[in-house]
């Protein structure tokens, strides 16, 4: 009885998948998107990129949920976060995920970069993907910093002020950079509006297409050190060695016959 129910359920599942595949091609797309050959060596290290993508997706989702309550004004920002943490159902849970996944994201993205560097995955033809990755890590860092300021508590406020002081030391554009980020020559409501706009709209809008480009380039060149890459390289080496041996043999033969 149980075996029959199991078999029937499995068949229904298959039928449903076939039905979807016929009409949308969804399974083929998913298969193409999800499967990427990776080398046997390294194993879990190759999941760091996927983990980064997962954490960024989590940031987007929880960030959207936080926007339902967060008020970007100097008088209400901290209070609205207090409300999320103490009054809203699951507020602590949603903000906790946003906060901790942001911290873990910085760690994972750093590890991903270290792995890429140490394995030499930035070498030709993958230089462009390395450059895109550098921009991505830069954007994520600024996102983390602006997110810190959005709390508008003493820690966040003074962190932002220290950031402004550092920006003011930039040669030639220091003054422009600070007044642009402050929204004037003092910190105030305009500052928080700008931090909010940068954190919620500007940087995510820059992040999303760059992630797309990063993934496209990964798909184009494949994971560095993948099995096929090694086999191709080994085949080339073997051919080169054979050629050298053949030439050496020919030379020996010529010498043996006295150069005739």
């Amino acid at each position, binding site marked *: 009885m149980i075996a029959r129910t199991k078999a029937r359920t499995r068949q229904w599942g298959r039928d449903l998948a076939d039905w979807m595949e016929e009409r949308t091609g969804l399974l083929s797309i998913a298969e193409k998107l999800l499967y990427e050959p990776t080398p046997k060596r390294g194993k879990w290290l190759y999941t760091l990129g996927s983990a980064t993508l997962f954490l960024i997706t989590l940031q987007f989702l929880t960030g959207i949920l936080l926007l339902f309550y967060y008020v970007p004004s100097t008088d209400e920002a901290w209070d609205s976060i207090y409300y999320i943490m103490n009054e809203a159902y699951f507020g602590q849970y949603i903000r906790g995920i946003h906060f901790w996944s942001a911290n873990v994201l910085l760690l994972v993205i750093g590890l991903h970069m270290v792995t890429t560097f140490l394995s030499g995955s930035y070498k030709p033809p993958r230089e462009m993907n390395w450059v895109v990755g550098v921009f991505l890590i830069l954007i994520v860092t600024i996102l983390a910093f602006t997110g810190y300021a959005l709390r508008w508590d003493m820690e966040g406020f*003074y962190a932002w*002020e*220290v950031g*402004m*002081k*550092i920006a*003011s030391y930039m040669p030639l554009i220091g*003054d*422009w950079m*600070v*007044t*642009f980020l*402050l*929204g*004037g*020559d*003092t*910190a*105030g*409501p*305009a*500052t928080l*509006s700008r931090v909010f706009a940068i954190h919620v709209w500007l940087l995510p809008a820059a992040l999303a297409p760059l992630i797309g480009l990063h993934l496209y380039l990964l798909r184009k060149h494949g994971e560095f050190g993948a099995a096929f890459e090694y086999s191709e390289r080994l085949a080339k080496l073997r051919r080169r060695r054979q050629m050298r041996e053949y030439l050496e043999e020919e030379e020996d033969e010529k010498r043996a016959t006295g150069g005739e």
Partner: protein
Amino acid sequence: MADELQKDPMSRGQFLYLGAVGTGMGIVLTVPPVIYVLDPAIKSVLQGRSDVPSEWKELGSVYEIPAEEPTVHLVEFAQRQTFDAGQPGAVREGDNVGTITNAVLVSWKDGRLPSLLEGRSEEEPLSSAEIEELTRELNVMNNACTHMGCPVRWRAEEKEILCPCHGGIYDINGMHTGGPPPHGLWNYTFEIREDGAIRVKHDMHVKEAPREKPYIV
């Protein structure tokens, strides 16, 4: 002959026309948004405008400043940013007017109380010569460290002003004596009235870096 050599279907005139139209469209699409977001920077850097109106604010009295240590005074300045740009109806008494609070450190030069204040009655008005002398002897400083902007504090045992963030040290006159700050504390523009009242403006300067701006609250 010229037609035979012309391999590209686009003529030179068409190319120039398209280039001009493209440039024009590019300018229309990019320049206004850039200027729009840079509005505060243009007003501050190019036009020299400040968010804080240049007006005097009461700080305290010279008779309240003791010898050997600076006192901290909280001064509230009006602040006009995007939410209050002077539009009609935007500024109402006690409502919709932004403010920023500055912590102002006030001390006597080298911590020594001026002799003319010793045993003097507060009722007796100060003469202009006395006001001039007191002005020379008074330090009116902002409490933001000139290194990274952290709030500094007076340490009575060491007789120094210390920044807790990176260990910047200043003497009682606000002069930099140690640590990473590039120069001394920012000095406010201030005046002393006949009754001994000190008034400050949200206008700061420092001798060592005349062209630098504080960028603090």
